[in-house]
């Protein structure tokens, strides 16, 4: 059931070092890369149907095209801010196969015409950042990157200050420019992101790490996996009440329950499943009966009222308190809201504090109304999708598990 494209070298000892990486096929795609024109590479990526793996699922090809077509000094910014509860896939790449990421960066930069790349690493990922940096140093020594490389390219690691919101691409760019990590107002027409006024392409670590396979083997080889609309593979992850938590790469389209059962060994201690948060903390919860129906691709989960997100599944067993689970999530949103937009700044704090009353079983029907109405105010009236996502999380819990909340009312 496991399909190894990105995770191919994960289990090899010292796979993060240049010698071992080269032995195991890293940088092999570069030969094929330089035989083709940048245009052709973008076309291949478009044909492969590669979708962004940072949570949004945007088509990589069209984003690359936009960046390539925009005049100016181009930047590739790799999003390694991975800070969402339940999402811990990018760290595997950073620590176990950083050369795959570097290889992907070379391919991407060549395709869009960029000679400068930044990797924005989550503040707390100090250890992974060090591993990545030593891999970059090795690549410079070998003239795989740097001014002496076949394609001159500089890669700089930038460590964040520890804010979840800096994973949002425009906040990330603000932060990289030295400003507060506040998301920007979205442009009215599709356009490349901007870094100091110059065009920038922002992609997730795993998206970039998927590129070498496609460059080396072609679009069809990638499309051989997954579904028509969600081609390829994803580093799905399991956490929570599961026997074998971890990151297991698989093709899109598998049954969610099958995946959990086969790769995760089922629910911990043989208990019954109550629900799964399917794609990292910011996706609406799926109760057990819908988990049986769900397929691991963008379209199936959307049709069930949730999202694939980053594919990081959090399991909750029959004994889990949904009130406490929601409290846990809301504390996160309260802590991480950047505080720009009124509905998000005030709303995340209000719902979090209101949940304390449910935990203490001193809530009133008024408090349940507050949860619902504040959640409504948070949806669709903000600069970035942080608040709408938080709103979706609340709505999901209330939709499927309202009875548990009613039990906490005096």
């Amino acid at each position, binding site marked *: 059931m496991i399909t190894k494209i990105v995770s191919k070298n994960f289990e090899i000892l010292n796979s993060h070092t240049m010698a071992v990486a080269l032995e195991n096929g890293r940088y092999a795609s570069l030969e094929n890369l330089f035989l083709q024109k940048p245009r052709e590479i973008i076309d291949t990526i478009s044909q492969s149907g590669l979708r962004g793996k940072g949570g949004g699922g945007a088509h990589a090809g069209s984003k690359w095209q936009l960046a390539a077509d925009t005049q100016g000094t181009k930047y590739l910014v790799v999003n390694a801010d991975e800070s969402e509860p339940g999402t811990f896939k990018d760290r595997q790449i950073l620590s176990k196969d950083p050369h795959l990421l570097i290889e992907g960066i070379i391919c991407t930069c060549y395709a869009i015409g960029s000679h400068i790349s930044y990797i924005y690493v989550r503040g707390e990922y100090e250890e992974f950042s060090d591993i990545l940096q030593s891999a970059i140093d090795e690549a410079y020594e070998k003239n795989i990157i740097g001014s002496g490389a076949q394609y001159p390219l500089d890669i700089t690691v930038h460590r964040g200050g520890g804010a979840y919101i800096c994973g949002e691409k425009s906040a990330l760019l603000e932060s990289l420019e030295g400003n507060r990590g506040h998301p920007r107002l979205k442009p009215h027409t599709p356009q490349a992101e901007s870094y100091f006024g110059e065009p920038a392409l922002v992609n997730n670590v795993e998206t970039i790490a998927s590129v070498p396979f496609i460059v080396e083997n072609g679009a069809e080889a990638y499309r051989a996996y997954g579904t028509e609309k969600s081609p390829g593979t994803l580093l799905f992850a399991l956490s929570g009440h599961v026997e074998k938590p971890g990151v297991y790469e698989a093709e899109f389209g598998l049954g969610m329950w099958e995946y959990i059962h086969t790769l995760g060994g089922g629910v911990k201690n043989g208990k019954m499943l109550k629900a799964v948060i399917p794609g990292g903390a910011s996706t609406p919860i799926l109760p057990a009966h819908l988990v049986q129906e769900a397929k691991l691709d963008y379209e199936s989960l959307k049709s069930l009222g949730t999202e694939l997100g980053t594919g990081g599944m959090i399991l909750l067993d029959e004994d889990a308190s949904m009130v406490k689970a929601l409290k846990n999530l809301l504390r996160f949103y309260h802590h991480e809201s*950047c505080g720009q937009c009124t509905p998000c700044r005030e709303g995340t704090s*209000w719902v979090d504090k209101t949940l*304390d009353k449910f935990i203490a079983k001193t809530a009133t029907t008024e408090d349940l109304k*507050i949860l619902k109405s504040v959640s409504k105010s948070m949806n669709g009236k903000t600069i970035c999708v942080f608040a709408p996502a938080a709103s979706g999380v609340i709505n999901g819990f209330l939709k499927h598990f309202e009875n548990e909340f009613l039990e906490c009312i005096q």
Partner: protein
Amino acid sequence: MRITIDDISIECEEGELLIDVMLNNNINIPHFCYHQDLGADGNCRMCMVEIKGAKRPQIACDTFVKENLEVITKSENINEVKRSILELELLNHPVDCPICDQAGECKLQDYYMDYGLYESHLTTPKTKKGKAIELGSNVMLDQERCVLCTRCTRFTSEITKTGELGIIGRGDSARVGVAPGHELNNPYAMNVVELCPVGALTSKDFRFKQRVWFLDTSKSICHGCSRGCNISIDYNETKYTREKIHRFRARRNARINQSFLCDYGRLSYKELNNSFKGTSSSIEDLKELLKEDKKLALASPSLSLEQLQAIQTLCQTHNIKLFCLAYYDESFGDGWLKTNDKSANLASVKKLGICTCQEEFDAALQEAELILNFDHTLLKHQEFGNKKSVQFTSTHLPPACGYCFGFANFAHDTGTLINCEGITQKFYATRFRDKNPSLSELLEQLR
């Protein structure tokens, strides 16, 4: 191009911001973070409108108008949206309006009356933040009243580029502040008080002195330098003092000062409360004096065009040599609003052909037997030995040996100024008369 807003057809230009169109046409659109001279930031979400064809309400400060756009600002749905945003905005507000200086000119109060009018739903404790924090440059901060619209921080980062103010913290602990050990300190700092839509930033110079609803306003021009920034003079007449000028506020003029003033000009209102309180000399004596032989007059370059004209006529009739010397200060100008020429009206002086030559003035001063000084600072406090002198003054002067006539300062007069860019502007008198006559009235009596 035309669009419709609440069934009213409005002429505008393609690509204009919807909120600008509404503000320019006096259509009520609640907003905190948008400011015509700071631009859009989109954070407060108060300016929601319904756009025909759009699924969700949109913010007017980030909507560009297109042909035949149909906008609805009043409907049950949109009012509910605004009510809910306002409720969130006010959630952790201390509601200390009775002791807040902004009361009466606070957008939270205004919008609450328009869209709020609900009972508080809050059943959890309020978030506490800092109060009465001195930021520097007369500016006081109350973090609990702040709606985090970032107007003030955008002003210091984008307009003055001094960057003293910033937002510290995230989520509901986000608050405005200065870096430790630093203070708000730039020649335009007090603008943030006016930019702040609520009572979070108040002026140490003004706070707790007046309730704004007791103030009257006149349209005027700052006389601090040749820029001619447009101001509103806020004043009233209290029981114990004669009429008092309490503050200058910027009056928007997109061509000159946008919505800003320098602190020097803003605080120059104080001079207007220092009018001449003594007894003026007798007009008959002055008429006698004017029969002297060698006469010289020096006029302030900050007098109005009308005042300068009246002086010029007087000088022509009585054969008086008239001069006007500019108030020049190399250290004042800054390439933005402040100009090195601190005369409010030098352009009018030049237009009237009044002599501004220092050497000619010095020579004439040597010779003169009678000196008339029209409010010029150079000669105001000067002793003239055995020469006779007459002071025409808009400010208080201690009793002196010479002759002295008080006249009303520009707050109490109406007149015309021409600024450094040749723009002619009028300023208007307050409703109250000064005890002193206007200069034109005074000179009229000498006819």
